[in-house]
């Protein structure tokens, strides 16, 4: 089976030779390929070549467009700087208050360079890596609002200006749906929804602002003909039942969630978890035995319905040997 076949079969609850291996690699991929992070973020060829090289060298089952959260924010007007070998940073152009956020207009992804690049990346993957599971990406409503306003201001807005936040998130969601359709049309097999900050706002605000919109995005991805992946890092225990209820096919679980076992029974037959090893204390720093044990434990806790991945991004300092051990641990999980 190739990565595409394995991923699709696993998601459809079919027979697989082993569970798919989907570690999130961004800075690690750029470093492995010897590409500056600026190039990785801004040059579709550089990103895709790095991802494909990692997929081939480490036997990954997927390739993704992930690099940083700023593509949509750039389209909404946030200024972003791209240091040569560091993460991109927002440098200005944020919405000054919740009221102005509500004046935001939906954007057309084809008119903005970073969004166009994402579509180009999917084109490249279709040409060069069709044997892998190709994953596009959009920012979720909460994460994008945080990108536009800053984390502290956005947090206060959720309590103080809920109506304006709702209006703004409607615009964010409308834009994301448009971006989803374009990515799926270009050939993405799956679209990830990144809504990281949701783990910080608690279940009440999650339900008030995020749940319905995430569900709309999942429905939009399904309607376009792709699988949906929902990624919220941090301890999502309090919102995991709702995350599962969005209908996302792949529900990411970070290492801060104590165990998947309490939630595994909530999965529909067509849903799987992805996770959840600690990228630092396990994948980067632990012994091969510990990495193996962690993967086995997580897989068992998920009742075998778990794509092998770390809870979040593989760190750039992770030694390639550890990645090989990590991949090997996905070989014959004991359920």
């Amino acid at each position, binding site marked *: 089976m190739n990565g595409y076949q394995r991923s699709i079969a696993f998601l459809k609850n079919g027979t697989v030779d082993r569970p798919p291996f989907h570690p999130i690699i961004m800075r690690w991929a750029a470093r492995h390929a010897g590409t500056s992070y600026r190039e990785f973020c801004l040059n579709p060829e550089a990103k895709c070549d790095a991802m494909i090289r990692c997929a081939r060298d480490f036997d990954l089952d997927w390739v993704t467009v992930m690099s940083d959260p700023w593509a949509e924010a750039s389209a909404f007007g946030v200024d972003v700087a791209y240091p040569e070998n560091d993460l991109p940073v927002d440098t200005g152009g944020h919405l000054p208050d919740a009221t102005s956020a509500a004046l935001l207009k939906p954007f057309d992804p084809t008119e903005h360079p970073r969004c166009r690049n994402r579509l180009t990346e999917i084109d490249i993957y279709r040409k060069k890596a069709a044997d892998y599971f190709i994953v596009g990406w959009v920012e979720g409503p909460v994460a994008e609002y945080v990108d536009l306003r800053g*984390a*502290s201001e956005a947090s206060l807005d959720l309590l*103080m200006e809920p109506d304006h936040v709702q209006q703004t998130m409607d615009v964010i969601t409308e834009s994301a749906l448009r971006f989803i359709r374009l990515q799926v049309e270009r050939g993405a097999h799956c679209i990830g929804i990144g809504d990281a900050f949701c783990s910080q*706002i608690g279940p009440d*605000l999650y339900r008030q602002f995020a749940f319905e919109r995430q569900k709309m995005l999942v429905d939009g991805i399904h309607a376009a003909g792709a699988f949906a992946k929902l990624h919220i890092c941090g301890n999502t225990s309090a919102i995991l039942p709702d995350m599962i209820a969005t209908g996302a096919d792949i529900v990411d679980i970070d290492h801060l969630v104590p165990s998947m076992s309490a939630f595994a029974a909530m999965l529909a037959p067509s849903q799987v978890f992805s996770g959840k090893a600690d990228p630092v204390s396990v994948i980067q720093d632990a012994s091969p035995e510990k990495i193996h044990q962690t993967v086995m434990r997580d897989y068992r806790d998920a009742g075998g319905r778990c794509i092998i991945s770390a809870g979040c991004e593989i760190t750039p300092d992770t030694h390639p040997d550890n990645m090989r051990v990590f991949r090997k641990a996905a070989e014959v999980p004991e359920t």
Partner: protein
Amino acid sequence: MEEILNNLARCIEFGKTDKASAWPPDMKEQDGADEIALRALEEGHPPDRILEALITGMEAVGRKFSENKIFVPQMLMSAKAMKAAMAHLKPAFESGTARRKGTFVIGTVQGDLHDIGKNIVAMYIEGNGYEVVDLGVDVKPEQFLAEIGKRPGCVVGMSALLTTTMINMKRTVEVIRDAYPDQVICVGGAPVTEKFCRDINADFYSPGPQGAVTFLNKLAS
């Protein structure tokens, strides 16, 4: 505690900044921390007692945060309420009629621009009676050194949200240790662990703000 101070503690606990604030909805149009702190001073309550009320409120906030009963937005509202009250106490601290437990110098390490965790820790420590000197984000080791030089006896706290900037935390600790071998240094942030704290020769790691306050209180006692 007198009723007015109880009310002040309650404003901190529930994040009621001032009368105009719409949060929390069930305290709408009631006086907030701003008005109550000012009135308490005008009525002659000693600044130290007012500070105690703020600490009581913050302790409730910290407890609820660690029990996952409130989350970052509510925590930040409480911080806002506390800041409003503390503004009235500032002259008392400056004149020495009220005293803080110690000084905490905090910042995110060089290269790291993520400040929400640092902000929460800073406000929580301030709300527990410490002077907090917030150096902001992307703080170079030399900036920490300069502040330590100005504030003998202070405790330094630094955070890193990214694994890529953890390495800068190590370097910052080394630079501080070279100049001030006995400097007390606390570290925190999502990728930081107890082991990493030990490896880089820092003194204390806590995954949340409550642990940091407990550590500081031990030092201060």
